């Protein structure tokens, strides 16, 4: 893709040159080329347009005209052609075009400010799907085909396994009554089923909430210590 240089102020090198000529208040038919070329280079440096080829091309053209102006003139003054003539012609043409742009801008705003009925923002070019043409028979055949192909749905039966939190609480109470402290491994058998583990976990949390025991874990992933914490005894 082409490299697009986005310049907020200037639409191109001729625009820049034209505004320079306006700012410097010089006669477009008698451009002091050395001065303008210098200013032009200065501006493209300020605007950091150094890598925009089109600006550099015009800069080079200005320098070439400047060099041609410096050459000694031979022969008749009548036959001498002003090296600036071509540039002036282009500038005038460009300026004329800018005037048309102003007109178009005004007219465009005039139209933009009035809505037509059913105004659609620019057609995006996407083709709209054609309306479906299908007979009832075709539709039913399709449905029939799908129903025949489809297998019976597999139904899973999920049996809820109840937790025995009360039982686990009884176990914990018995153990800590006897031993004062206990570990998780003392309470849950190695081959315990998931429901037993969950019941025990909930039982411990419940008892800790009731203040019957204290849970402590000295460091992450260490075994949890369970201590008897009867309020009566603590006093």
């Amino acid at each position, binding site marked *: 893709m082409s490299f697009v240089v986005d310049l907020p102020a200037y639409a191109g090198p001729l625009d820049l040159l034209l505004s320079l000529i306006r700012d410097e208040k010089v006669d477009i038919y008698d451009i002091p080329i050395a001065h303008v070329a210098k200013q032009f280079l200065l501006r493209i440096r300020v605007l950091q347009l150094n890598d925009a080829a089109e600006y550099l091309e015009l800069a080079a053209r200005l320098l070439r005209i400047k060099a041609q102006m410096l050459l000694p003139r031979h022969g008749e003054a009548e036959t001498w052609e002003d090296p600036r003539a071509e540039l002036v012609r282009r500038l005038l043409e460009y300026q004329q075009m800018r005037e048309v742009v102003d007109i*178009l801008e005004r007219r465009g705003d005039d139209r933009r*400010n009035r809505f037509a*009925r059913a105004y659609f*923002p620019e057609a995006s070019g996407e083709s709209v799907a054609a309306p479906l043409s299908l007979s009832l028979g075709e539709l039913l055949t399709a449905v029939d085909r799908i129903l025949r192909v489809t297998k019976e749905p597999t139904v899973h039966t999920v049996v809820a396994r109840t937790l025995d939190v009360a039982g686990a609480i009884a176990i914990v109470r018995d153990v800590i009554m006897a031993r004062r402290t206990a570990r998780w491994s003392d309470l849950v058998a190695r081959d315990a089923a998931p429901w037993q583990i969950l019941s025990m976990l909930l039982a411990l949390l419940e008892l800790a909430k009731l203040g019957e025991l204290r849970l402590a874990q000295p460091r992450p992933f260490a075994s949890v210590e369970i201590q008897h914490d009867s309020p009566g005894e603590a006093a």
Partner: protein
Amino acid sequence: MIPLVKLLEAALFASPRPIPVEELSVLAPEASPAEIASALDTLREHYDVDGHGVELAELGGGWQILTRAEYTEAIERAQLAARPQRLSAAALETLAIIAYRQPIGRTEVEEIRGVAVGSILKSLQERALIDVVGRAEGLGRPMLYGTTSLFLEQFALRHLEELPRADELAIALRPTPQPL
């Protein structure tokens, strides 16, 4: 209102695009061009004099009912319709050159603007504001571009001649640059 005026109003209301006069006369084959012209005048006056929120505009080679500009802000604020985006300065310059010099090739546009316009031409063509209208005779038979009726419509122009002629533009052009 006489029936012809009502018929034209209904057709103009139904169409999202400006309707050229020829198409309006297809609508009412028994009416003479003068009758249609006077019916359009009656409708326009009806909107203007009686005070309506819409007006009848002649643009893009035809006639169209448009909302009045003073209600645009309110309509847009209520998000009932949105104004199309403005064209960039670069796109407008390119469009201006094509409008005046059509049919014109890419290189000539670039010569006047002093910058490459390939991608701008493409996007203007996508927006249907310009189109390829032919091919030049020269090497490679380059494509020539011209403006479309949508261009006229979007710039509220009846026809291309409504743009000022090049010699009417306000710049003080001296016939030839003065030699030193």
